[in-house]
C-alpha cells in the first residue's frame, strides 16, 4: 500500500508540483545556482500581455459556451434514450461512446476537411459559404468542442436517471400531476444538480482540450490556453516559466470547476435509492412524437459524429486530398502507402504506440485496482486520500501533466544521481501511466465500493487471504468492467497527443505525433488512413475481447456487474 501511494506521489503529485514550482519559483529549477526565491513575474506577465490575457479570456468564454450547449444536448439525449421507448436506443448510446473515444484532433481535422474553403462540402453544395464563415469563428470552434464533449453530459445525466424511480412518478400521478407536471415539478428539479455537474465536467474538458486547440483553433488565429502552453515550450526561445504560469492558470480554472461540481452534488444529494428500488419503465411514445424525435436524434448524430467521422473516412480514401485540391476519386492508395517502404515510420509508430499503450493500460489496471481495493477496504484516511487524488488528477488536463513531466524529469539533479528519464521512453510511459491511473482508480473505487463487503468477508471467513479474495472474488466479479476500463485506457493512450508531443524520444514518434506530422505536411489522406487503420486494430481487439468475455463470464456476473459513474 505504501509502495502504491509512493508511486502515486512520484507519478502524479511530483510532476504537478513541478508545474507550480516552475510558475512561482522558476529559479529553483535554474541550471546555474538554483534558489527557492518566490517570483510570480511569469504569472503577472500573463495578465499584462494582451495576447495572453485575451487567450485566457477566450478559452474560459469558449468553454462556458460549449459547456452550456453540450449539457443541454447531452442531457436531452440522456432523457430521450434513457426514459423513452425510442427505437435504436442501444445503437445511439453506442454512438455517443464512439464520439467520446475519437480523439479531438482527429474530429477537428474531419471538420476542417469538411468545411474548409475547397473542402468536401464545396463539392456537394454550391453555397456552403455561411457554414465556412461560422466554422472559422469562435462560435464554430465552440460548436466543434461541444459536439465532441457532449457525451460527458450524456453519461452524467444517464447515470442519474435511474434515481428517478417509478415510485416518484406513481406518487405524483396519484396526487393529480400530469406527465408534464411530473417532469416540471419532480424530475427536472431532481435532474438539475446532475445537469449542473455535467456542465462543469464539460467546461473542464473543453478548457483542457489540446486536440482542437492545436488544429482548428490555431489555424483560425484563435489561440487557446492549451496551445499557449504548447507554444511556450515548443517555440524558441523556450519559455518554461511562461508555460508553467499558463499551466497553473489552467489548473486553477479546472480546479474551480471541479470544486463547483463537488459543491453542487454535495448540496443536492438525493439519497432515494433503497433495497426495494424499482427502476421506471420507459415512456411509450405516441407515433406523432416518436418519428419526429427519432429524426431529430438521427440528425444530431449525423452532425455530431457522422459529419466529422464521415469526413475522416472519405478523406482516407482520397488521393492527395490536401484542402483545395480534392480529386473525388476513391482510392486505396493512402492505406496501401502505409504498407509501402516510404511509410516505414508510420507503421513503426503504430506498433510503438500500441505496445506502449498495452503496457500502460495493463500496469494502470493492475496498480489502480490494487490501490482501489486497499482504498475501499482500509480505514477512512487512505480511502479519502485515494478518492481525492483520483478525483483531482482525473481532471488535470493531459497537457499540464505533460508539461509537469518536462519540468520534473528534465532536471540536472536527476542526472547527477543517474536518473535520466527525460527523452527516454520511460518518461513517456510513466506520463501515460499517470494519465490512465486516475481513471482506473476512480472507476475501480466506485465499482468496489458498490460491491457488498460481506461477500469479501464471507470469503475471508472461509479461509481466503487478501490474495485469494482479490483473485477469486473481486476480479471475476469486476472482470467485465475491468476489461472495458483497460480498453478505454488502451484506446486513449494509443491516440494520446499532448504528452506524446512533449515527451516522445527523438526518432521514435508515437502514433498521434505521426498523424499530426502527416497533417502538418498536408498529407491528410495518409494521416487519416493511419488513424483508421489504428482504429480498426483497436475495434477488432474490442470485439474479440467482448466475445471472449461473453463466453467466459457467466450471465450472472454480466447482469450484476456494478454500475460505473462518471
Amino acid at each position: 500500500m505504501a509502495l502504491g501511494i509512493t508511486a502515486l506521489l512520484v507519478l502524479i503529485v511530483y510532476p504537478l508540483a513541478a508545474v507550480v514550482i516552475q510558475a512561482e519559483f522558476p529559479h529553483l529549477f535554474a541550471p546555474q545556482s538554483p534558489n527557492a526565491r518566490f517570483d510570480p513575474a511569469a504569472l503577472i506577465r500573463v495578465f499584462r500581455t494582451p495576447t495572453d490575457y485575451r487567450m485566457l479570456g477566450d478559452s474560459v468564454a469558449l468553454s462556458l459556451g460549449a459547456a452550456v450547449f453540450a449539457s443541454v444536448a447531452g442531457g436531452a439525449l440522456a432523457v430521450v434514450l434513457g426514459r423513452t421507448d425510442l427505437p435504436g436506443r442501444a445503437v445511439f448510446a453506442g454512438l455517443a461512446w464512439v464520439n467520446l473515444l475519437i480523439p479531438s484532433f482527429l474530429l477537428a481535422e474531419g471538420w476542417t476537411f469538411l468545411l474548409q474553403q475547397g473542402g468536401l462540402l464545396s463539392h456537394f453544395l454550391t453555397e456552403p459559404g455561411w457554414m465556412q464563415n461560422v466554422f472559422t469563428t469562435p462560435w464554430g470552434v465552440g460548436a466543434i468542442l461541444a459536439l465532441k464533449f457532449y457525451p460527458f453530459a450524456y453519461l452524467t445525466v444517464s447515470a442519474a436517471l435511474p434515481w428517478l424511480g417509478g415510485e416518484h412518478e406513481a406518487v405524483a400521478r396519484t396526487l393529480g400531476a400530469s406527465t408534464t407536471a411530473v417532469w416540471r415539478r419532480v424530475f427536472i428539479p431532481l435532474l438539475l444538480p446532475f445537469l449542473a455537474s455535467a456542465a462543469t465536467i464539460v467546461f473542464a474538458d473543453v478548457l483542457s482540450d489540446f486536440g482542437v486547440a492545436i488544429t482548428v483553433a490555431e489555424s483560425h488565429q484563435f489561440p487557446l490556453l492549451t496551445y499557449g502552453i504548447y507554444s511556450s515550450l515548443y517555440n524558441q526561445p523556450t519559455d518554461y516559466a511562461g508555460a508553467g504560469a499558463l499551466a497553473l492558470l489552467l489548473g486553477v480554472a479546472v480546479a474551480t470547476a471541479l470544486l463547483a461540481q463537488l459543491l453542487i452534488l454535495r448540496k443536492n444529494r438525493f439519497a432515494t435509492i433503497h433495497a426495494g428500488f424499482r427502476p421506471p419503465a420507459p415512456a411509450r411514445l405516441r407515433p406523432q412524437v416518436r418519428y419526429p424525435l427519432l429524426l431529430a436524434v438521427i440528425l444530431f448524430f449525423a452532425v455530431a459524429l457522422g459529419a466529422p467521422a464521415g469526413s475522416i473516412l472519405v478523406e482516407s480514401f482520397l488521393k492527395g486530398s490536401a484542402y483545395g485540391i480534392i480529386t473525388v476519386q476513391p482510392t486505396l492508395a493512402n492505406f496501401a502507402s502505409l504498407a509501402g517502404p516510404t511509410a516505414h515510420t508510420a507503421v513503426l509508430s503504430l506498433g510503438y504506440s500500441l505496445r506502449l499503450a498495452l503496457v500502460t493500460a495493463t500496469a494502470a489496471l493492475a496498480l489502480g485496482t490494487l490501490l482501489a481495493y486497499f482504498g475501499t477496504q482500509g480505514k477512512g484516511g487512505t480511502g479519502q486520500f485515494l478518492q481525492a487524488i483520483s478525483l483531482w488528477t482525473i481532471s488535470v488536463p493531459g497537457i499540464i501533466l505533460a508539461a509537469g513531466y518536462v519540468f520534473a524529469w528534465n532536471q540536472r539533479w536527476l542526472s547527477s544521481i543517474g536518473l535520466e528519464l527525460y527523452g527516454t521512453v520511460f518518461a513517456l510511459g510513466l506520463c501515460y501511466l499517470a494519465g490512465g491511473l486516475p481513471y482506473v482508480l476512480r472507476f475501480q473505487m466506485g465499482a468496489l465500493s458498490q460491491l457488498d463487503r460481506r461477500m469479501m468477508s464471507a470469503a475471508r471467513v472461509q479461509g481466503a487471504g487478501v490474495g485469494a479474495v482479490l483473485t477469486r472474488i473481486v476480479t471475476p466479479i469486476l472482470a467485465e468492467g475491468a476489461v472495458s476500463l483497460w480498453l478505454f485506457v488502451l484506446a486513449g493512450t494509443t491516440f494520446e497527443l499532448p504528452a506524446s508531443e512533449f515527451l516522445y524520444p527523438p526518432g521514435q514518434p508515437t502514433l498521434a505525433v505521426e498523424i499530426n506530422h502527416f497533417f502538418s505536411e498536408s498529407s491528410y489522406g495518409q494521416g487519416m488512413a493511419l488513424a483508421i487503420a489504428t482504429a480498426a486494430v483497436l475495434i477488432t481487439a474490442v470485439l474479440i475481447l467482448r466475445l471472449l468475455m461473453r463466453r467466459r463470464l457467466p450471465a450472472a456476473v454480466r447482469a450484476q456487474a456494478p454500475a460505473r459513474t462518471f
Partner: protein
Amino acid sequence: MGEALQVHGLCKRFGSVVVADHVSFEVPGGGYCAVLGPSGSGKTSLFNMVAGLIHPDHGSIRLGHREFDGPRGHLPPERRGIGLCFQDYALWPHMPVKEQVAFGMRLRRRPAAEIAAATRRWLELLRIEALAERYPHELSGGQKQRVAIARALAVQPSLLLLDEPFSNLDAPLREILRDELGALYSALGLTVLHVTHDRQEAMGVADRVLVLAGGRLCQEGPPHELYRNPANAEVATLLGPANLVPGHAENGLFGANGLRMRAAGAQPHGPALLFFRPESCSLVSGPAELNIFQARVERTAWHETGWRHRLKVGDHEVVALTRTPAEAGAKVWVHVPAEACRLLPSGGASVAALSAAG
C-alpha cells in the same frame, strides 16, 4: 463438535460511539446463543469482532483453547475456522451453488474427489442438490439461505455465526427453516452465535439469549427466564409486549393510583416500575382487592389467540390479552397474579415510551 466461545471484557468504540462496553459472556460447546438488541445496540459489531472482521480495542475472544483476540494479538478471519452467514447471504454472483459450497474446501486444498463428495453431501443435507448448477440470481430467498448455510458448514467450523439470517424471508418459510436448521445444528453439535433484533427469532431457536443495549450486556439467560424475569424495562420490552406502570414500592407492596399489587421476585423500596405481560391478565367480576384493579376499556380487538384490550387505569395505560371480550367504554375488573408481576428499577429508559408495548 462445537467448542466453547468465551468473550471477556470486550470493548470497542468508533470515535465517540461505544459499540461494546466490557462485554463478557460464554457460549458452551454445542450451545445456541442469540444476541438480541435494537438497532445500534452493538450486536453487529460484536458479530464482526467474533468473526475477526474488526479488531476489538480491549478484551479477549477465545474459542476452545484457541485465542482469537487477546494479549497475543489478532487472529485474521481466514484462520479462525468459523462459519458465517449474513442477513443478505453474501453469495458470490459469479459462482454456481456447488462452487460456493466447495470454495472453502478448495482453499484448504482438499483432494478433488473429497471436495465433490462433501459438496454433494452438504447439498443433500440442505436439500438443495437440484440447485447445484444454478447461480445466485436464479435462486429464491429460502434457497439462497440454504446455500449460504451449506457454504458455511462445508468447512466444518467449530463455531457458526449467523447475522439475522431469516429476516429476508416471509413468515411461514422463516418458521420452517428455523426449525429445520435448528435441528441440523443440534445434530451437528455446533456452537452457534446468532445476532438478531427479532425477539421471536431469538427466543424460537436459542437456548440462551444475550440482550445488548448501547454496547452493554443488559442480561443473559434462557429465553423463558428473561421473558418472565427481565432485569429492567429495556429488556422487558425487547423480549415482548410489556406493561410498565410507574409507582412506589414499600414492604412488599406496589402502589400507584388505582392499583395495589404484590409482586414476586426482588422487593425494592421506593420508586419502582410494576411489570407484567398482557397475557397474565384476566377479567374477573371484582371487587377491588390485592392484585385486582378496575379499569376502563378504551379499545378492544381480536389478536391471534384472544381479545386485546387497551385499558385506562387512572393516568396509566395498560394492555390486557384475555379470552373474555369486553366493550369499549365499559368498566372491568382485571386480575394479575402476583407470580406474574415483577418490580423493576424505575430509572433509565423512558417509561412512557416503553409501557404498554405490543
